[in-house]
């Protein structure tokens, strides 16, 4: 696997201090985050590794790991990858345990022949929009402002990191909150696939 190594152009002491502030903020409230299923497993500049569980399920699963790379922070936003919580390998698109679907309003529904009263509003349908995006052969990435992969994408050249940086869009807790909101909290149970097999006949008590 080829992993892009972004260059550190900011004074490393600056990025390190900001990274350590993120980690200290997490640790200060670690019991509260732990109750929600967030566990900081590893933190060594510039990398942080957080495991996310779904405590509302029985048994509670470790749903995903999240790998952060704060190289060159906060001249640049952090890189964020959803990874296997055990191997730390990035999920491929078809392996993702969740695509972080969000509900968005779709286009107005046009029904041929339907006459709307004056001032009437055409019905709209709700759609699901995954926040995890992927292209053929590429690793899935979290497609929101505040994430390096989003701002590096040519389609988002008009939505600069500098616009989002003052509000802390790249902060560890904020990104975990979004992953939790769209990926973990909506989980309500397990999908189970049972494959029955016929292994013989049921029969009543044998006659004498």
């Amino acid at each position, binding site marked *: 696997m080829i992993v892009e190594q972004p260059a550190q152009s900011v004074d490393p002491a600056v990025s390190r201090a900001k990274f350590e502030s*993120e980690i200290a*903020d*997490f640790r*200060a*409230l670690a019991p*509260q985050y732990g*109750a*929600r299923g967030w566990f900081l497993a590893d933190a060594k500049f510039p990398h942080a590794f957080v495991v996310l569980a779904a405590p509302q399920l029985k048994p509670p699963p470790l749903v995903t790991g999240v790998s952060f790379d704060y190289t060159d922070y906060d001249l640049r936003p952090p890189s964020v990858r959803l990874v296997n919580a055990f191997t730390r390998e990035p999920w491929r698109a078809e392996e993702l345990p969740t695509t*972080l679907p*969000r509900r968005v309003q779709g286009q107005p529904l046009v029904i041929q022949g339907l006459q709307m009263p004056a001032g009437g509003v055409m019905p709209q349908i709700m759609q699901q*929009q*995954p*926040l*995890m*995006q992927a292209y053929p052969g590429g690793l899935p990435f979290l*497609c*929101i*402002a*505040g994430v390096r992969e*989003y701002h590096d*994408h040519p*389609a*988002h050249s008009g*939505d600069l990191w500098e*616009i*989002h*940086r*003052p*509000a*802390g*869009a790249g*902060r*560890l*807790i*904020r990104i975990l*909150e*979004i992953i*939790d*909101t*769209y990926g973990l*909290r909506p989980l309500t149970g397990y999908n189970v696939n049972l494959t029955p097999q016929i292994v013989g006949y049921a029969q009543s008590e044998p006659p004498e």
Partner: protein
Amino acid sequence: MPENKIRITVVVNGQPTVVDADVNSPLGTIIPRALEQTGNTGQPPENWELRDAQGTLLDTSQKIASFHFPPDVHLFLNLKAGVGGLS
């Protein structure tokens, strides 16, 4: 502290700050103050969302008193996802 006041710890993108509020005010009134105190500029209050310690989204139009917060309450204020997933 007067009976109609409450001290709320608001964790803004991970950074805690303490906000004194009137229990008869809407919960949303603490958002601009928490943002100001933590120096989070550039995004208006409506672009943030407030959750309790369990991660439940709170209705910021409701009076603070209606939530019956305990004295050591922590609320979590985070920037919304915004436009995303449209690559």
